[in-house]
């Protein structure tokens, strides 16, 4: 973009340089994106940037507009207003070029159920203009990588949910996309399969892919994303690095269960009065037989557990509890999520 008139052009250049500094090589750049469905605004003026080689987590409840955003960015639907560029290509004016740089894995696996794993990947390879031999090689390589080699010849309809999702992920990677959209990649998966998908995403990022990930799970965002954008009712309501957001919403809750419930008040008192760095209080959950300690860092967790060991408390279990999506929303907006979804409750066992 250039403005060719005297002083004005200097201003425009400076402005452009400033924008570049703010968003170094944004692989995805979204400005004022609006999409209506009748009278409902699925997207109501979204702005976001995903710098090259990073993972942006888009967190929001059901119906927040996450999937609509991904569909606009993958040229499946057209926005009503605003602009979106991916890999430098505009979604409206350069869809053909844009489709060459993206890969999409949706919530519902988009593979042909009647075709085998190999046939599915070979088909995508051919549609991406790979020569026959190369398409075969790439299909085999990705099946190997996603541990699907044994099932390669079976029709996808015989695959388990996790296998299908992995095949879908493989299909979206055939063309080595520079930008990958993962739309709720682990919704509906069991924890083991979820971990497999996460591991693959980590690998992709290590190889330099830019990822836009939508999720309802705080834990998933924490595992995968560098930065978070929280959206609700089609608007961005918060954003920033995970740590910033976690500090804002109070991080995690450390739940301590003493072996003897009679110890609850003494244990809470010990934690509260120890003056550990950043640990400000402890509450007793009498019914649950727990002491809840808000913490932000792993160091604080270690310090609390260390303190209790030193004081000779006998513990039945120690676990950390990430804030649920509802709690994040409550902290950010003072309101519950619009869908009242509380799936985001995740427990991480650290000791038993």
């Amino acid at each position: 973009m250039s403005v060719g008139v005297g002083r004005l052009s200097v201003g425009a250049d400076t402005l452009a340089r400033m924008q570049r500094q703010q968003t170094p090589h944004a692989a995805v750049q979204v400005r004022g994106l609006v999409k209506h469905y009748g009278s409902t605004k699925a997207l109501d003026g979204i702005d976001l940037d995903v710098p090259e080689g990073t993972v942006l987590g888009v967190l929001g409840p059901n119906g927040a507009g996450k999937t609509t955003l991904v569909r606009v960015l993958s040229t499946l639907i057209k926005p009503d207003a605003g602009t979106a560029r991916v890999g430098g290509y505009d979604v409206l004016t350069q869809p053909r070029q844009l489709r060459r740089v993206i890969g999409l894995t949706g919530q519902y696996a988009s593979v042909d159920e009647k075709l085998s794993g190999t046939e599915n990947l070979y088909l995508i390879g051919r549609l991406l203009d790979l020569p026959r031999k190369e398409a075969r090689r790439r299909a085999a390589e990705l099946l190997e990588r996603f541990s699907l080699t044994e099932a390669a010849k079976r029709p996808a309809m015989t695959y388990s949910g996790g296998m299908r999702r992995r095949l879908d992920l493989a299909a979206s990677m055939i063309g080595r996309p520079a930008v990958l959209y993962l739309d709720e990649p682990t919704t509906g998966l069991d924890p083991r399969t979820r971990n497999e998908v996460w591991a693959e995403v980590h690998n992709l990022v290590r190889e330099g892919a830019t990822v836009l990930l939508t999720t309802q799970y705080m834990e998933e965002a924490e595992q995968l994303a560098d930065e978070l954008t929280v959206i609700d009712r089609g608007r961005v309501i918060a954003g920033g690095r995970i740590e910033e957001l976690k500090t804002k919403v109070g991080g995690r809750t450390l739940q301590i269960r003493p072996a003897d419930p009679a110890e609850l008040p003494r244990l809470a008192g010990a934690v509260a009065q120890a003056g550990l760095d950043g640990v400000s209080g402890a509450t007793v959950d009498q019914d649950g037989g727990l002491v809840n300690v808000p913490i932000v860092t792993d160091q604080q967790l270690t310090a609390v557990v260390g303190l209790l060991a030193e004081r000779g408390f006998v513990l039945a279990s120690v676990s950390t509890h990430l804030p649920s999506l509802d709690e994040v929303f409550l902290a950010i907006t003072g309101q519950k999520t619009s869908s009242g979804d509380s799936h985001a409750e995740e427990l991480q066992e650290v000791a038993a």
Partner: protein
Amino acid sequence: MSAAIITAPAADGRLGLRDHLRHISALARRNALQIKQNPEAMFDVVLMPVIFTLMFVYVFGGAMFPGHRDDYVNYLVPGLMAMTGLNIAMAVGSGVNEDFSKGVMDRFRTLPIARSSVLIAKIVVEVGRMLVAVAIQIGMGLALGLDIKTSVVELLAAVGLSVLFGASLMWIFVLLGLTAKSAQAVQGMGMLIMIPLQFASSIFAPTKSMPGWLRAFTDYNPLANLADAARGLINGGAVAHSVWMTLAWSVGLTVVVAPLAVAKFRQRA
């Protein structure tokens, strides 16, 4: 990230004819593999011509042409060729509808291919299925005593005409398939079109004995025109009128409905 493997497209992402052909053949291969995976999908192609021919020849044959069942074979089989095209065209509608209700369509739509390639590939494979069905139909006829009184050229013309008209009908069902909410709805609507066209025609019985109001319909029923044309081409006799009528219907339907179907496809795709 290396993107070196991907064949460099033109700077504006425009695809050449060879790209389109490659995409269409890859997608047609997909449709063919689906059939291989699910051989029941060929029941209509293989069994329908066999069952219909046997059934009608032995149920009606004796009554229609007492003592000359062979003559009924020669009357019926060309008409059934017309019906076969219609039946397969109908299946295209539910196929297209099912395809669209699946996530794999989203995958295709995010790939740098022309969206119409998906539709064209489907039609290519279905025309292939139609050819197989018509060939089985003729084979069955020959087994029951069909006598080709003209030559191979006319026989091939009859086959070509049946498939041409069948392909033009496909557009109607593609449009239906893209419009209807479910594959079942497509079948329901298809039946509504199919039954009167099939039975109020000259396929099973000559129209001479039908009342005037019905003949007014059968005279312009494209399926009756096609049946008459195929019959003339196989048995000899005047065919100009019915052949022209069939060609007019085929071209007319395609010219009117195909753009609507493609527009609907683009809108959904």
